[in-house]
Structure formats: structure tokens, C-alpha cells
């Protein structure tokens, strides 16, 4: 099955004094992938930027660099996308491989070298003994990799509470372990840390989750903001994406924007401003619902 969505992602900053110079980088546009096509995309910034330029990073993710020079006390970054997402068909053979054989270091797989990137610690995902210990029960010898990943997802979902108050965007894996709670980004980081602690490659995926899931399924957590999940390398170009926040493998309710080693590689919006303002506020909204009317189609792709 495939599903077409219209995704509206708006980020608004408000400042208590004028900002004269604002530089930014936004990962907003869903990628084109096997099983996912971005049919249309419109990106807008208010005030109008004096300069903007598309950037493609080392993982092939697309982002936009922009520079606003009009003095402003409000900056609005909006992306509207129409995306067709197919339900994921899992490669059962790949999922049935014992996890030990999927360590990229020393693997014979021709693409293993590129996956090594995702086995190493990264700025927000340090691998401490606590993580090794937490992950260990899932890594039973010879267990099929698909089961390992599903089990990690179950356990994280069961052991950690969804609580936006306990962590921040800069929280690290030890913080999450200590506080036994967090949000989608933290759960993704933790699951990736578990994979890496046992030599597997885990990457961080930033994307969107359908606000109203197809076929009358239950409303999922994390749908009214940017969402994040994890993926485990299965050899070659195959990855198993799993959403520990909702304890399920990713399906046609998930639209992928970008991936990296951790959140820091692909934040939806980051920037640098020059200002005397000391206070600011931020409002983010995401809406992803089935696309029904042609009138919703943005004007450019």
C-alpha cells in the first residue's frame, strides 16, 4: 500500500528586540528514497532571506542555508510537502541473520565501510558501560537481528516514560538512562547507543509521523512535532527502521527527512543570530495528514 500525505511544518521564533542578522540551516524536505517520493515541496521564510542556497550533505540529505538581513522580531520558517510513502516490505532473510554477523568492522560486505560511521560514538551518543549493560539482555547469542531490534524497542518503550520535561535537545544518553524518561529523540538515541555498544551500526532518522494514521489506527505519539527514530544496518544498503517511542517498526505513517549519527547532524532548524535581544520564544507545529484535494498542492516542487 502507499499513502500520499500533505505535511505542513512551521517554526516561529519571536524575540524581545530586533534581530539584524539571522543565519539558518533547515532540514525540512522529505528525501526521495525507495518507497518514498516527495511529489511537491514549498519552503518559505519570513522575512524574505537575502540569500539562500541548497545544501546536500555527506549522507545525501537535503537542507537549505538561508540568511535574513531584514531587521525582525519574528522569524517564520515553513515547509509544505506532498509525499508518497509506501508501506515497508521487510526482507525476512536479512532480518533473520544472526546479529553478530552484521558488525560492519571486519565484515566482508562491500558497503560495510560506509556503515562503520554509525558504529562509533558521536557527540550526543557516548557509549558508556551503563549502555552496554542495559543493552546486553537483548543481544542473546545468535539471535536474529530483527528480533534484537524489536526487543530493544519493546524494552525502551516499557522502561522509559514519555516526558518532555526531563530532557532537552542537548541531553545525552547517560542523562536519559539516569532519568528513565524523555522524548522520541532520546529514545532513538538510546536505541542507537544499544546497537553501537554491541558493534552494530545504528543511525538517527529525523522525519514526520502521520497526525491521523491511515486505516483508522490509533493516534501516535509525537505527531504534532518533528519526529525521530532509529535504524539498524542489515548489510548492503538495507536498514531496519524502528520507532521506539511508539514501539513499532516504521511503516507508511513515517516520512523520512534526513539521517545522521545523531540529532546534532540533522536538526530540523538551527541557526546563529546577531542581536541585543536576550529573550526569545519558539513555536513549532507539524501537521501530516492524507492528501485529498488537488487545491492543497503547493505551487512549486
Amino acid at each position, binding site marked *: 500500500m502507499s499513502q500520499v500525505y500533505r505535511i505542513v511544518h512551521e517554526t516561529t521564533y519571536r524575540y524581545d528586540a530586533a534581530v*539584524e542578522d539571522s543565519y539558518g*540551516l533547515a532540514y525540512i524536505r522529505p528525501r526521495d528514497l525507495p518507497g518514498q517520493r516527495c511529489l511537491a515541496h514549498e519552503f518559505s521564510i519570513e522575512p524574505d532571506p537575502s540569500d539562500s542556497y541548497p545544501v546536500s550533505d555527506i549522507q545525501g540529505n537535503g537542507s537549505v542555508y538561508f540568511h535574513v538581513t531584514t531587521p525582525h522580531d519574528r522569524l517564520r520558517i515553513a515547509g509544505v510537502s506532498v509525499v508518497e510513502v509506501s508501506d515497508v516490505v521487510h526482507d525476512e532473510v536479512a532480518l533473520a541473520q544472526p546479529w553478530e554477523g552484521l558488525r560492519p568492522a571486519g565484515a566482508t560486505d562491500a558497503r560495510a565501510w560506509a556503515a562503520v560511521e554509525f558504529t562509533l560514538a558521536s557527540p550526543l551518543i557516548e557509549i558508556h558501560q551503563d549502555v552496554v549493560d542495559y543493552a546486553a539482555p537483548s543481544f542473546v547469542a545468535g539471535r536474529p537481528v530483527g528480533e534484537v531490534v524489536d526487543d530493544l524497542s519493546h524494552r525502551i518503550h516499557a522502561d522509559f516514560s514519555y516526558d518532555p520535561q526531563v530532557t532537552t*535537545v542537548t541531553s545525552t544518553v547517560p542523562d536519559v538512562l539516569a532519568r528513565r524518561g524523555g522524548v522520541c529523540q532520546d529514545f532513538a538515541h538510546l536505541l542507537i547507543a544499544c546497537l553501537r555498544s554491541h558493534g552494530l551500526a545504528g543511525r538517527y532518522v529525523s522525519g514526520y509521523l502521520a497526525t491521523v494514521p491511515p486505516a483508522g489506527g490509533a493516534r501516535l505519539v509525537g505527531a504534532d512535532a518533528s519526529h525521530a527514530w532509529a535504524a539498524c544496518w542489515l548489510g548492503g544498503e538495507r536498514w531496519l527502521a524502528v520507532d521506539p517511542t511508539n514501539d513499532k517498526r516504521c511503516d507508511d505513517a513515517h516520512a523520512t527527512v534526513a539521517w545522521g549519527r545523531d540529532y546534532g547532524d540533522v536538526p530540523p532548524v*538551527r541557526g546563529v543570530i546577531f542581536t541585543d535581544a536576550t529573550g526569545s520564544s519558539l513555536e513549532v507545529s507539524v501537521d501530516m495528514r492524507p492528501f485529498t484535494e488537488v487545491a492543497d498542492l503547493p505551487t512549486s516542487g
Partner: protein
Amino acid sequence: MDRGQPLPEAATAVWRSYLTRGDQRSPGLEGHPGLPPFDEVAGAGGVREAWLPIIAALQRLTAPRLGALVRRADRLLADDGVVYNPIGSADQSEPGSVATPVPWVLDILPLVIGEREWRRVEAGLEQRARLLDALVTDLYQERRVLAEGVLPASLVMGHSGYLRAAHGITVGGPRQLISTAVDLGRGADGEWRVIADRTQAPSGSAFAMENRRVMSRLHPGVPEHIHVERLLPFFAAFRAAVQAAAPDTAVGVPRGVVLSPGAHSETAFDQAYLASLLGYPLVEGADLVMRDGRVWMRALGKLEPVDVVLRRVDAAYADPLFLRADSQLGVPGLVDAARRGTVSVVNGLGAGVLENPGLMAFLPDVSRRLLGEELLLESVRTFWCGDDRARSHVMAHLATMVIRPIDRTRAHSVFGGDLSRGQRDELRARIGAEPWAWVGQDLLSLSRAPVFADTGLTSRPVTWRTFAVAGQDGYTVMRGGVARVPGPTQPSAPGPFLGRPLQTSSKDVWVLAGPEAAAEGTGWLVDGPSVATDAYAAFSPRMLADLFWIGRYSARVEDLARLVLQVREAGGDLSIPPVGWRAQAVAALRQAITSVTTTDPGFRASGVDPRDEFRSLMVDASRPGTLAQGVVALKDALQGVRDQLSSDVWLVLSGVERAVADLARSTGDPTGADVVSVAEQSLAGLLGFSGIVMDTMVHDAGWHLLRAGRAVERSLNVVALLRSTVGIRRPGQIDALVIETVLAATESIITYRRRYRRRIHAEGVLDLLLFGVDNPRSVAHQVQALGEHLPGFATEPDQRAGLDRAFASASEAMEAHDAVALAHPGTDGTRVALDTYLSELDGRLRTVADVIEETYLRGPGLQRPLTDAAAVGAGR
């Protein structure tokens, strides 16, 4: 070991005892068991050939003469203001934390490299630079070495110098790697080996040039006589390499800048001197801006395009948007400009990946794969722990190996032999947890070179930093370099360069020219920039602010020195307190110093010992308003623009600093004669300084701003002095002494006598010091001068309005004032009208300074990171 030549007959005992010293037969270390360390001077049964000319030239060196040379070397370096800000003495991540500069130390004897030996080393270094260039090019483009398994991916990807954001960025010209530095050490077998590659932002080439300048003055005629290769051609090649890296879109001569982390960074001297040797402006991140798709330099309210950024800021800090968000040293958007190809950043942002010592284990294979050549210059034998067999070797030989993290930002290197059993086990566990992050290396038993210590020559382990820059075909290697030895006070430990805090001395490296080169003459040209500075204006708000404050501080220190001299003179010997009316006059004058310098309570404090207070005013750099603090602030501002100024300013300033430091160390002279001496030396120094400013500085916008700063400061000082002295009318004799001292301190006493004969009265002083346009020390004259200098930097008409208004207001205050009316005292003696007037004038003058700062000296606003702290996860 080289066959030795007999020592020349005339060689002094200093050389004889060096060659026959006992430590030559010390036991060998790991790697070459049984062999003693190689000696740079001694060959079998005599002297190595390359050293004969230098020994012959310096054969008359006796111990006392050596001692004198050491002192002269220190003095010459201090006169050039050469310092090194050691990392570790300040936390670089902590804003406002400042390293304490330590003097750069140069040993008086060079390291000598013979011509044949040099040719071998040069070929090896040239090949290594080509190899590293090929490797860095591949790592950020095709990544063949990774896909083919020539290099393990974890070795590269686990290194913080591997910058993902740099992927796909290229610069113009034939090479991606523009400059490299390589540290060499010579093993017991006599072979030079690579200890470290430096590619992030290689430092030290300008230190090499400075060392050469000093050596040529220490040993006049000697380098010329024995045909030592020159260093200047290297800097010409360097400039050509930078120009060649410019984007194709650059119009005319590419415009380069040297991007520095600031005057307090580790190698600030090297950065500034390199900038002047290359003829590029020295800038900091805030001086540059990315706008409309390219990088510009802020200059006098305009933007000047920049084509090449010679980067001395570590890549991770170079762009707070794409890289470290907490960096205040970078330029937001620089990565994007580099990616678009509108600016070339050199070395490239990803070049730091090459500093990984783990690569050394693989370079022979990489060389075969990328160059099709065998590696000429060996590295220190290196075992990468990510490889199982190599790891077993390291674990088994931990006690005799040097253990290094592949990434020196993550841990220190250690010599296993220095560790306890427990520490070794701990280290084994760390290696076991992240084997890919560690290497083991053989400990090189470094060669020994002669160093002067105490009364004679002693031997010290030596390393040699070499430099190379990209050329059209291959690389140009500097024919020289910087050698380093442990400082005289350091023990000669087995691993002297293992990242432990270590004080080192440097040595100049003399490469002897071959017969052909010697025949055509090496043209021993040493001084100054090799090229003219680029004609385009290099005036960012930060540089202009430094120049403005140089003007203000230089006038402040000079005026204060004069005032202190005259007030001390009025009070006489400090050990004999004045009495009667004189005591009142002296107290009033001393309190005037406190007012002018705003050092309250100062002389107003009850029971203050004038000796202590005078001394504090001279030496206490931590107390705002003192002479010492003014000198420190002046030096700070000078550091920020050191590429713009004649090096003579350091000569002048070091004299003042020495005087202040001497007084601070002395126990004190009760008469205050020592305070007088410091004030006199400061005055002499500052007069020399203004002479340099007048005679040697180009009359450009920066000069006008400096002069404007002096004029503002001078007028403010006169106003403050008058307020605190003539503000009250005192009985006749007291006022006579006070006013006479004020006139002397403002250098106006001769003019005054000519005009008013001997009669001392307030009206005359006010007339002369406030309104006497002909008197160069009057406020009116300074305001007039200010008016003349404003158009020199305020060139943009649309920015002039505020400044014009402020200046008109100050200028107006100078007109149509009646000195007699101002001097009229009230019944209690206070001159209310005068005080009101001076207070108003002070305000107007300060407004001019404020408008200048606001309009021309203010950088961009405060830089802050923008996160989407609420963006991921619902309702954060």
C-alpha cells in the same frame, strides 16, 4: 655514525668538553637497543662534517661570551615582543580566559643540517606533502582508500578532524593541502623520522623567520660566510600557494586574509608575523561576514570581498552555523561559501584528519595506492590498536612504548614507562574499550644537540619542525625550520615531547647550501615583509577600535608619567613629608593624580603612605587607571594590529615594561627616586612611540583614528586636571605651586611665562590650557586636531551626521568663553562656573568618543546560537 673530522685547533674548551662529555655512552632505548642516542655534532672520532664550518666560525666562543649571547638573544626577542601563549594556561573554551604569555626562548646555537643530508630529507618531506594532499583529496571526494580498505574506516571516521561538513568542498589550484608542518626526530641509527604531521593550521614558520632575524644579529656575518640557505623564498612560495588556491571567480590579484583566533591564542605572534610576511591583513572571525553568497571583510563601514581565508582557527570553530555552535571565533556561513566555491579556506576545513598518528601505520600502503611510490621518509614505528595483531603487540610492550590517542583533543599521549602497574592496567582497559582510538609507537631515542646551560654546552634531545607549501609541481620545503629542545630547567627525560607541560627552547635550523648555491650566493637578506601589503584597506571595526585605543592609551600613559614626575618634584623626597603651606599644595596635587586617573581613594585615603601609592600607580597592572595597567592595555591593543605597525614599537614598549617590572621587583627607594626613574623611562618610551607613529605610519584611516584617539584623550586629561586643581581657589603660595605644577605637567610653562611673565593666576592658566589654540597642549588645539582627523576615517557621508553633530557641540564649547569669568571664585573658594563648564565640556568630548565607537568601532551584535529546542518531540 658519520665519520668524524678532527676538531679545529683553535676551538675553545667549550667545544672540547662538549665532545668528550660522558652522556654519549648512555644506554640505548627501545627500538635500537644498545645504540647510544645519535649526536648532532660528534661523529666517530671527531666532529660531523656539517658542523665544521660553524665550529670554525664560532671557535672563539668561551663560556662568558656564550652567557652574554644568551642574554642578548633574550633581549632581542623581548624587543620584538615575541611571546608564546601556552595552551593549558588558559581554558580556551572559557570566554574571557586569557593565557599568560611566556617569552619565546631561542638557543644561541643552531641545529646544522649538511647539504647531502638535507637533499634526502627534503625529498622525503616533499613526497610526504604530496601524499597527504592526495589522501585528503580522496577522503573528502571519492573515498577510494576507504571503499578499497586501504585505510580502515574507523581510523578515519573516529577522528575529530574528519569533518563531514567538508565533504565535497575543493579549493582552486593544483593542490587541496596548501601548507603542512612535519615534526621530525632522529633515531639512534641517524635517520630522521616523522613524529607528527601538522595540517589543521600549521604554526611556527614565522617563528622560524624571527629566530633567523635574531640569529643573524647574534652571529653577524656567520650565516653568510658559511652559506646558510635563506628562508625568505619560502614565504614567497607560501604567498604564491595561497594565491593559487583562490576561486576561479576571483577578480585581479586574489585578496587573502589570515584568520586568527585572536591576540591571546597560542601562537598569536606567529600568526601576526606570518600575515605581515605574506602581506595579508590579520583578521578575526568578527571582522568577516558571509553575505550574498560570499565572504567579505568589514572595513570602514563598507564590505570588501575576500577570496582566500588562510585559516589559523581550528576547523571545528570556523563556522558556528555548520560546525560548533558555541564558537565565537568563526564566521557563520563560511562552510556554505566554501562549498559554493566563492571563497577558498586553506588549509581546507577537513585537513585536520591528517594529524591522526594512526595513519602512519598505513602511509606506505596509501603511498603505493595513491602515488604509486614507495614512501621515502619513514614515520616512527606505529601500531594501530584497531588491528588485532598490532593491539596484542602494544598491550605486551606497553611499558616501553608511547601510547597516543589517534585524536589529541581526546586524551594525552603517555610513555608507558612513566606509568605505575595500576595505571597501565587502566590504560589497557581504555584501549580495549575503544581499540580504534589508540596507537602505540616506538619511543624514539632522539638525537642530542648542544645547548648552552649555566657555564658551558650540554646536550639535549632535539626535534625539528619542518614546513612545506604547495607549488605548481610538488611542494616547496622551507630550507630550515624550528628545532625544539627541553628548556634549561627541564630534566632530560626519555620522552620529552609527550604532551606533558614542558618548557622548551627553540633553535634556528641552518641548512648548508650546496657548492652551486654557495657560488651564486645565498643573499643573506633577513628583515621585513617579502611583499608589499595588499593595497585594499584592512580596517575592520575591531582593528579600528584597537588603533583608536592605542591612541588613547599612549596619550594616557604619557600624560600620567609627566604628571607623576611633576607632582613628585613638587613634593620632593618622599621620605621627608612636606610641612606648612607646601604640605597643603602637595596634598592637593597628589589628590589631583587620583582624580585624573580615577584611582579613588588613592591619595585621598586617610593615612596613605605616598610612597606606596606612587609605587602602586606605577606597577599595579591589576588596578584600573595606573600606568602599568595603561601599558598592558596599550600592548593588548597593539597585539591586535601588530601587522600594521613597525616592529620598533615593541622595542620602545619593552623598555617601558622592563622599567615597570624592575620597579615591581625592587624593594623600594624611600626617596621615591625609583618612581621618578620609571616615570622618566615611560615618558621616554612613549615619546619614542609617538615618534614612530608620526614618522613611520602610513597616513591612512587607521592613523587618523589613532590620532583622533590621542586628541580625545589629551583633552579629557587636561579637563580632568584643571577640574581637580584650579577648581578651588587656595591661598597665594599654595595656588602658585599647584598651578606651576599643572603648567609643567602639561608642558605649557614656557609658553605661560612668555605670555604672562612671572605672575601666576588662574585666568592665565585657563586661557592657555583651554582656549589657547596656538598652544599644542590646549583643549582648543586638540579639538581642532580632532576636527582635522575625523574626515580621515569618517568617509561615508551617510554615516557622518551623528559624528558631525557631536563634534560641532564640542567645538562650540571652545568658543567665546571668558576665562576671567570662569576663574571667578565663590565665597568658599570654589569656582562654580568653571566646574560647570568643565563638566559640560567633559561630557561633550566623551560624546564624540562614544559616537566614534558606536559608528565605526562596533562589530556585529552579540552572536547567539538559535536552536529548535522545542522542535523535536511534542510540546517540549
